[in-house]
């Protein structure tokens, strides 16, 4: 009995096969390529992250030395660490690009609201994952980031006080904060992300297949043509990640010492716009103190983003135009931060 036949009797394989072969995607479907690349980078993160946990010690007194040991002594440890750090940056970048193309092409519109909502949750999970990961080496820079990042939680409306204490594991940034970051980075967030990614992909297969005539521009079959192209793109991403990991060092920096003044160092690149705004914001805005106003504004933007397919049901030009304005503004603010 052939393998497809055997599987057909057990898991209804013909249905799975039909849902793949019956579909077409736009040949220039950047949304799909970026989604696939983001998923691929996530898998790279899971694999390299599991390897790192074998030597990493989540203890404020030992963490920094254990990361140095991974990079300096463990065979290929520098490669595993480099891949994890670089792929994390590329993961956030491809997540943001994926979001951008979805907004510009109006791919959030009905009937894909649930794909969009699950995607926004993945964006938040991804950024928190990158942030908690940056805390783990417990370097001076990681310690400063933990201080500033957790402080923002205090200004979240309603639950701020609780969230602030919860993120720090107490009143102040201590060894408990590192333990919390570790638990979230390796258990809570990956578990949550696995479930939401599964939902995100499941929703793709459940929506009605799109007919070629409803897509503008040339189309290709999802399988095998699109999968072959995506595999080529993944190979390219692998080459980029390995090259960066091998040739561009990501120094860990000195260990955290709460007695030393915080480093004036910049936050991770995806928080550069926030850094510029925080530095320039006045002490008081519309009757709120600066950080309260910023976190409040970010919360409002978050809610609007989540509700976007229900606010703009057709994927209007205005939304695409706003996305371009937002992108240019974020690039401008990032450049301001480093100059």
């Amino acid at each position, binding site marked *: 009995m052939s393998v497809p036949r055997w599987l057909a009797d057990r898991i209804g394989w013909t249905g799975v096969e039909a849902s793949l072969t019956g579909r077409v995607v736009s040949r220039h479907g950047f949304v799909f390529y970026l989604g696939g690349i983001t998923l691929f980078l996530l898998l790279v993160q899971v694999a390299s992250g599991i390897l790192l946990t074998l030597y990493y010690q989540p203890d404020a007194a030992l963490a920094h030395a254990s990361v140095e040991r991974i990079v300096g002594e463990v065979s290929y440890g520098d490669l595993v660490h480099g891949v994890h750090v670089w792929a994390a940056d590329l993961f956030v970048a491809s997540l943001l690009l994926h979001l951008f193309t979805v907004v510009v092409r109006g791919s959030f519109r009905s009937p894909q609201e649930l794909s969009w909502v699950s995607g926004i949750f993945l964006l938040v999970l991804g950024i928190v994952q990158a942030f908690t990961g940056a805390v783990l080496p417990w370097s001076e820079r990681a310690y*400063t980031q933990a*201080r*500033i990042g957790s402080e*923002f939680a205090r200004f979240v409306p309603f639950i701020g006080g609780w969230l602030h204490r919860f993120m*720090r594991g*107490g009143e102040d940034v201590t*060894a408990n904060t590192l333990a919390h970051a570790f638990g979230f980075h390796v258990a809570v967030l990956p578990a949550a992300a696995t479930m939401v990614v599964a939902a995100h992909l499941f929703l793709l297969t459940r929506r009605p297949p799109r007919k070629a005539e409803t897509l503008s521009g040339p189309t290709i079959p999802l399988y095998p043509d699109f999968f072959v192209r995506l595999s080529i793109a993944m190979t390219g991403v692998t080459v980029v990640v390995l090259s960066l990991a091998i040739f561009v060092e990501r120094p860990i920096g000195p260990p955290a010492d*709460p007695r030393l*003044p915080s480093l004036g160092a910049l936050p991770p690149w995806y928080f550069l716009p926030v850094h510029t705004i925080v530095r320039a914001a006045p002490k008081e805005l519309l009757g709120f103190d600066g950080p309260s106003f910023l976190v409040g504004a970010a919360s409002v933007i978050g809610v609007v983003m989540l509700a976007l397919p229900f606010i703009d049901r057709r994927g209007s030009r205005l939304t695409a135009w706003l996305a371009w304005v937002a992108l240019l503004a974020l690039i401008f603010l990032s450049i301001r931060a480093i100059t």
Partner: protein
Amino acid sequence: MSDNDDRKEVPRRDFLNVAIGGSAAALAVAGGYPVVRYLEPPPSQSKGAVRVGELDKFPVGSVRTVLVNERPVLIVRSAQEVRAFSAVCSHLQCVVAYSPERKQIECPCHGGVYSIDGRNLAGPPPRPLEELAVTIDEGVLLVSPTG
């Protein structure tokens, strides 16, 4: 049971749905309550003053950073007195430091500036540095972690 004959019949399925749903909700509350309470970190244990060292280690005119229960604290000694300030910026909680050249306390993260007595002078900080109570016991300096 003739007096119960006019009561409304509850279909078996509806009854089971309510029973299963109710049991699940009760289990979720019973299991969830301890979890939510567990997530709230306990308050820090030591409320009493902490020894930070002998007074001789803090010469007149010096500003040093020490740790009090893992928190950075600035010890400022002038000719008249010894004062202690939390070395945590009132803006976004970076660790501040004394600049001997400019005779002021500075936050490296977002450019906040404080005077030597903790007042916020420039930049984003909305409040002065928190001052902590200092006691001197037989030549040993003690700092209270809270106010």
